[in-house]
């Protein structure tokens, strides 16, 4: 499939909705927990078993983004969005079948394995296209799409819960809910498939497409540069610090103020979790857009440096002031979201647009590690402190000090990032701009 090239007069503001239609859909993954209790009661599963489809989905997200990135670059965004649509929707349809016939392995295979491939390919599908359409504001453009991944759970969580309430929480109700999810997301994502276009290549005097200008590094070469691995450390440290709070937010705020005159109720803790989700989303678009103004290195200095300061304030004064605790946690979570959303633009600055989607896919393996590391640190330490007879904010003091240390490591890694050495650059002749496909209107040299 040739990348679909924009016809004359095509608005670049059609590309973010195309990206959002995919990211808002695949972001549903973070609302999987809605299906857990009904699955456990309908199919007699344990909590660990009912988490399997989500966990496998996230593993497949990392793997398919890392290994499928080159294919996405080769075949273009429409191919990638089509693969994402087919995999993500088929995952739900297989799960519907699994629930209907009470075969849980089909749900794990469908949602986790097949759907997970859709997550990974869908996540990276619009990145390089957005950067090419918005070379003046790459942070804002990718921030919009990656904000959608956070927004997907906000939509799916109440929607799925309402659906289960209407259809019932037995296996046939769950099957029907999966079926409706699969079909609805297929229609919703179709907009992205139909709408996405790559910018048309500039023509040289001889009428052929001009190669990309500036620094261009292939995905294979990028892995051999220290810059890639420094950014990998930066992302891993930033995500670990954020996910440490996000994953344990409700028990954390309850524990922090358990011994005070204003303890936090379960309802208020749920409100805190929702507020963190809002900060996460706002950070994705807000901080990423800010990076277009102050530069990528500077914005990561803020994420990591101010993030460490926020953790320090929580560790020192968090249990004496609820507003301070909430404010610091919100700032940390906004940096967590911002770190995700700014990464593609940072990669574009360092490696060019040639294979930025594929490089981004490989960078996301840092997310996979951080997703394990952050919760592990916070939960393991809290459990041990509890066994030692501690309570309240003391359960988290050590974790917070570790998070501060990790953020300082990330800060140092960011400071070491320099422009990529010329020996890694691709020769101009090997980085052609996209070819025009047969399915598009032929370009007029003077148009638009």
């Amino acid at each position, binding site marked *: 499939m040739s990348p679909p090239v924009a016809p004359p007069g095509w608005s670049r503001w059609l590309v973010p909705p195309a990206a959002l239609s995919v990211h808002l859909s695949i972001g549903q993954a973070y609302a999987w927990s809605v299906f857990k209790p009904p699955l456990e009661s309908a199919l007699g599963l344990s909590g660990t078993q009912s988490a399997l489809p989500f966990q496998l989905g996230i593993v497949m997200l990392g793997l398919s983004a890392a290994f499928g990135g080159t294919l996405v670059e080769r075949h273009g965004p429409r191919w990638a969005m089509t693969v994402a649509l087919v995999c993500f929707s088929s995952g739900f349809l297989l799960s519907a079948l699994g629930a209907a016939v009470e075969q849980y392995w089909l749900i794990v295979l469908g949602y986790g394995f097949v759907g997970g491939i859709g997550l990974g390919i869908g996540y990276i599908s619009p990145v390089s296209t957005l950067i090419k359409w918005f070379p003046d504001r790459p942070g804002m453009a990718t921030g919009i799409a990656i904000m959608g991944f956070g927004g997907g759970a906000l939509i799916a969580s109440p929607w799925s819960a309402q659906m289960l309430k209407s259809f019932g929480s037995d296996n046939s109700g769950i099957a029907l809910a999966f079926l409706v999810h699969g079909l609805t997301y297929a229609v919703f994502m179709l907009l992205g498939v139909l709408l996405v276009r790559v910018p048309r290549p500039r023509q040289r005097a001889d009428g052929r497409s001009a190669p990309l200008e500036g620094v261009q590094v292939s995905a294979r070469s990028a892995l051999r540069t220290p810059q890639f691995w420094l950014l990998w450390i930066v992302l891993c440290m930033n995500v670990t610090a954020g996910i440490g709070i996000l994953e344990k937010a409700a028990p954390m705020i309850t524990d922090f103020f358990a011994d005070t005159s204003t303890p936090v109720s379960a309802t208020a*803790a749920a409100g*805190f979790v929702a507020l963190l989700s809002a900060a996460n989303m706002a950070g994705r678009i807000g901080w990423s857009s800010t990076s277009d103004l102050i530069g990528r290195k500077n914005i990561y200095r803020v994420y990591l440096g101010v993030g460490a300061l926020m953790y320090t304030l929580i560790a020192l004064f968090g249990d004496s002031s609820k507003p301070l605790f909430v404010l610091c946690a919100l700032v940390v979570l906004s940096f967590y979201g911002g770190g995700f959303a700014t990464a593609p633009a940072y990669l574009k600055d360092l490696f060019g647009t040639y294979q930025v989607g594929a490089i981004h896919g490989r960078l996301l393996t840092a997310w996979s590690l951080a997703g394990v590391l952050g919760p592990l640190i916070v939960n393991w330490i809290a459990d041990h402190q509890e066994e030692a007879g501690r309570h309240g904010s003391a359960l988290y003091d050590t974790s917070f000090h570790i998070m501060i240390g990790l953020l300082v490591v990330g800060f140092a890694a960011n400071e070491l990032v320099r422009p990529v050495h010329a020996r890694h650059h691709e020769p101009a002749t090997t980085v052609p701009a996209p070819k025009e496909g047969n399915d598009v209107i032929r370009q007029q040299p003077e148009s*638009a």
Partner: protein
Amino acid sequence: MSSDSSQSPPEPAQGPGRRPLVAFTWLWVGAPLAYGLYELVRKATQLFTG
């Protein structure tokens, strides 16, 4: 660092015919997002009222 002058972007002239399409596509993604945000705000207020 890099610039990508070999592709056409910044703001191609957008014919008036595209505006309804732009509006429709933003509404397509904006409406469900607004619903999600509404539900989020409802939950988040529980921090102060719960």
